[in-house]
């Protein structure tokens, strides 16, 4: 599997280098790549590992030495969190909101992006600019008027009352990422489909959607992660709307827990690390699909 990428890290670009280098098992450039990769990984994962490992320590030990190794290992903090209703309520709530938001924004987003990417019409630039301008509309600006609106239509403090505004605020990013994806699909394909008698809609369903799979997965993952991690909108639309505390999303729940039990560092660390887990598991799973999808599309 040693191909160009290896040979091209050779310092001297002698014309014959590609052939020679193919026989080498590895070279210095490749080692250097691994050193950089490991450094970046250590910096990325280190703080997370600290929180996880800290959850296995007793609070008294943490206070005595904040950077120590667990001695003895104890899973009491983790067990306490895992047997509490509020943790599982938060997991349920975060899942429901994130799935609803993702489904909504991917469906609405790909439809709008299709029009912007593949139709010629007056106002297309304006339409794109309108959604792009949405990137500059901070959630904070809209939050209170939004909660008043939702109160008037009876959705304040409900799941749809959080999901629909989150879809609305996720649309700009989704559309801006999807438009280039849909645009990159060659016109020849569309022409061929037209010659074969497919309508625009038929082209959308049969060719556009399957080919834009990687793009859809990318925006879907982004929407899911953003919803899962959202703080301000849940705070103002869910907590302030009277949703019971057991059904607050995880970020709200963690923040609340860490304020409530701030003296018990071990418990806070355990709650924090367990809150990371669902998003991490989802992403580790989805990341493979992203990379697989992308390379599949390229090598196809």
């Amino acid at each position, binding site marked *: 599997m040693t*191909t*160009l990428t290896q040979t*091209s*890290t*050779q310092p001297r*670009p002698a014309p014959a280098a590609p052939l020679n280098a193919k026989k080498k098992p590895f070279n210095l450039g*490749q080692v250097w*790549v691994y050193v950089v990769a490991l450094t*970046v*990984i250590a910096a*990325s994962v280190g703080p997370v590992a*600290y*929180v996880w490992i800290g959850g296995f320590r007793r609070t008294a030990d943490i206070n005595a*030495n904040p*950077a*120590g190794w667990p001695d003895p290992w104890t899973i009491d903090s983790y067990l306490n969190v895992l047997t509490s209703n509020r943790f599982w309520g938060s997991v349920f709530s975060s899942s429901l909101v994130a799935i609803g938001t993702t489904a909504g924004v991917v469906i609405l987003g790909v439809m*709008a992006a299709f029009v*912007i990417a*593949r*139709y010629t019409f*007056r*106002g297309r630039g*304006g*339409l794109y600019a309108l*959604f*792009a*301008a949405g*990137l*500059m509309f*901070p959630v*904070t*600006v809209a*939050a*209170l*008027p*939004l909660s008043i609106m939702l109160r008037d239509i009876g959705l304040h403090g409900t799941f749809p009352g959080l999901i*629909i*505004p989150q*879809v*609305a*605020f996720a*649309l*700009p*990013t989704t559309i801006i990422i999807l438009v*280039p994806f849909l645009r*990159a699909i060659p016109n020849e394909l569309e*022409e061929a489909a037209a010659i074969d008698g497919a309508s625009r809609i038929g082209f*959308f369903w049969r060719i556009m959607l399957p080919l834009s799979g990687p793009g859809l997965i990318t925006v879907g993952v982004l929407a899911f*992660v953003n919803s899962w*991690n959202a*703080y301000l909108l849940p705070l103002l639309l869910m907590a302030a709307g009277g949703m019971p505390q057991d059904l607050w999303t995880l*970020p709200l729940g963690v*923040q609340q827990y860490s304020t409530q039990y701030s003296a018990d560092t071990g418990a*806070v660390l355990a709650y*924090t690390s367990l*809150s*990371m887990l669902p998003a991490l598991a989802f*992403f580790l799973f989805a*990341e493979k699909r992203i*990379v697989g999808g992308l390379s599949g599309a390229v090598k196809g």
Partner: protein
Amino acid sequence: MTVTQAAPPPVASDTGPAKTQTRAPRRKPGGNNGRKWLEIALFAGPALLVFISFVIVPVALAAVYSLYNWNGLGPLDRFIGLDNYVRAFSDPLFIKAIGNNATIVIASILVQGPLAIAVALLLNRRMRGRGLIRALIFVPYVLAEVIAGLSWKLLLSPRGGINAILEGIGLGHLAKPWLADPDTALWVMFGILTWKYLGFAILLMLAGLQGVPEELHEAAAIDGASWWQTQWRITLPLLGPTIRIWIFLSMIGSLQLFDMVWVTTKGGPVGATNTMAVYMIQYGQGQYGYGSAIAVILFVISLIVALVYQRFAMRRDLAGAITSGVR
């Protein structure tokens, strides 16, 4: 305003027949125009409706509230004109917050951008454990800002993990109350943000790199180009659109920074890490008219930055996009 542009009269669509012909020769120009507009309405309509109702309208309402002295509950009847805006711009704390946002915008582009491109170039190759490496680099981005912020707050507290580690390896003189020192708190905050968002930048760059055909690299190698020459002359220019979009997203994100600061420092110490959004929540609660004025200022600043950037940096991307579907 822009909304009206989205639904112009159907007849006007074929302004330039010549232009339509040089474009991809799709459907007959002028053909079934009604059907085209129906499709456009059906496809873009739902997104537009949700977006306008739940983003544009509330923001417009905030602009109205900013002209009132209003606590968010009673009737909206104490009109005070631009007083809220005057008050904001005469508060040194708010000016400081704008400066902090600007610092983070510039530092992010100068530090995170090159770093992300470098890492993405390194990882965009066949190597053992590539999937795992990529996944691990994305870990910070996956975490909620609240969770990441709480973790860093514990790590960086005077009696936290970082100082304990520094003492453990004999660098105890470097230990300090990281987030409590007004001189360095903003840079510590920037470090946390870099840790948090580098993964996203790398993700975007890697996706962009997938769009650079491998044949180009092979052709360059055959022509005797070195690895550096290939990256500099071929990969980077082709990565241009991705880089420009990342800069755009990064700038807007930096201007609207809230969660991380709110969870770790609440803008302190003495406003050292304050941002516009944090200031807005701090001073806007209970005085909603004033908070709305801050929101409008934040919005206008973001808008100007974005428009100027789009005009000068992203023009090529957008122009190419609109004038031809083919590259």
